[in-house]
């Protein structure tokens, strides 16, 4: 998709923030402690860290699906239902067609109906699934299901898109393709993405900024600003700059794991 090589405007304004957030589960496990960072409007922010470091918990807190035990989350710049969420699994309704699944958020929010059809069409077109609107999830491949899941998150035109290791279960070829498509969508929609991953390579390829979390209880250990040519498609993955940054982040991850 040939998109203009532009950076989203107002990159520096804050969209949401964690302020000294701690989260302890009822079973006594402390998932997060002293998590403190700001999400800037228009950025592609990755939360990177080992499994079980509380990345997913941070995302659920940000979505308002659970409440922090300590500290607070500032979300005032994000409207009530202006958050899209893509889960680790496609999480589709198996009894509903692709189009009905994508339409679901609009149905749940309850709104004008005549606009809904065109929005669903737009969302399906964005992920390249216009021809599959009447298919059932069972009939789709893993990658296609994940595209439906992304279309569903985008159908409300969210300001903030939260993604919880969405491509972890996919094969590498599908993952690379979806990485590129996601970047194109992010650029086209001018939204803010918070992306949880445990892959150094994926985070460097996608993000404008990476926050590395410590093992449990998670807090920010290091921050990296990724430098890449815009638009960063295909070639960036094999460039020396990409390799160098991956090396830097990997080394930091090893350090965090050792000290953690």
């Amino acid at each position: 998709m040939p998109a203009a090589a532009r950076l989203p405007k107002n990159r520096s304004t804050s969209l949401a923030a964690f302020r000294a957030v701690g989260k302890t589960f009822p079973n006594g496990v402390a998932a997060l402690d002293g998590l403190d960072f700001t999400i800037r409007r228009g950025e592609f922010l990755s939360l990177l860290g080992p499994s079980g470091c509380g990345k997913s918990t941070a995302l659920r807190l940000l979505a308002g699906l659970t409440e922090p035990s300590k500290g607070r989350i500032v979300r005032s710049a994000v409207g009530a239902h202006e958050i899209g969420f893509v889960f680790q699994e496609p999480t589709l309704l198996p009894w509903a067609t692709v189009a009905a699944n994508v339409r679901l958020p609009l149905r749940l929010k309850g709104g004008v109906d005549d606009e809904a059809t065109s929005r669903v069409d737009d969302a399906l077109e964005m992920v390249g699934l216009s021809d599959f609107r009447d298919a059932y999830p069972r009939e789709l491949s893993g990658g296609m299901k994940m595209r439906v899941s992304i279309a569903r998150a985008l159908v409300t035109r969210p300001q903030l898109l939260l993604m919880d290791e969405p491509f972890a279960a996919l094969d590498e070829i599908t993952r690379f393709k979806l990485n590129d498509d996601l970047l194109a969508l992010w650029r086209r929609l001018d939204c803010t993405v918070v992306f949880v991953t445990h892959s150094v390579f994926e985070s460097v390829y996608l993000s404008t900024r990476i926050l590395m979390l410590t093992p449990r209880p998670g807090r920010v250990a290091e921050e990296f600003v990724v430098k890449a040519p815009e638009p960063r498609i295909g070639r960036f993955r094999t460039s020396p700059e990409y390799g160098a940054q991956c090396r830097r982040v990997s080394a930091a991850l090893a350090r965090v794991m050792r000290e953690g």
Partner: protein
Amino acid sequence: MPRPTANGRHPLEIALRYLMPALALLLALALWELAVRANSIPPYVLPSPLLILGTLVSDWEVLSVSLAVTLKTTALALLAAVIGGVLLAILFASARLVELSLFPFAVILQVTPIIAIAPLLLIYLEPETAVLVCAWIVAFFPILSNTALGLASVDHNLRDLFALYGAGRLKTLFLLRIPAALPYFLGGLRIAGGLALIGAVVAEIAAGVGGRGSGLAYRIVESGYRLNVPRMFAALLLISLAGIAIFAVLSLIQHLILRRWHESALQRDS
């Protein structure tokens, strides 16, 4: 019972799947017929298959009325079990306290053998109502427990998704929990269909003298007193056929509802 998902590789294999059991059945019936004839076994000891078939035709006037009575009881009991079971399951799913308070009663009702409850019900209720209640009691539990399990087995991420978009309890119930419970409910329905028939038959036997409009089980008891063994077998055959028909119809309903989306209806190559 044709299995819609069973996909034989050769047409021959499919033909064999139906041909072999049919042949085996015919062979067994032929042996039975021969044994009865060769040994001149009197019909009041063991009637031959042909005689049973003949009785079915000659007694059709009596037997068809009884069949209709038993089928009506079964159908009404199943309908009441569906309504009661589903409503109670939804109540259980939405109010934990109600579930904790009432579920033990449902279990007690289920584990107490119906044949032991029937005489009591026959004292309190009209015979026809008592038979219906007995059939309902046995059919009710699988629908309740399966539907309750289905309503509680919703994917956690989907729940989060509904919460994220501010869906209320009603929307979550109708758009998420009820559809998710559907396969469980249909599984329970298939069990309940057979149980409703069993409940109706057991209660009819317990009720004994039924007088007018008596069901098939009553015919069996009555024919037993008169040593009309061929009619006993004919009535028994009708009960079996009714059970098979109920199972087939409920399986077809399940297949038609689930075939587009559920894993259980998936066609596979190998």
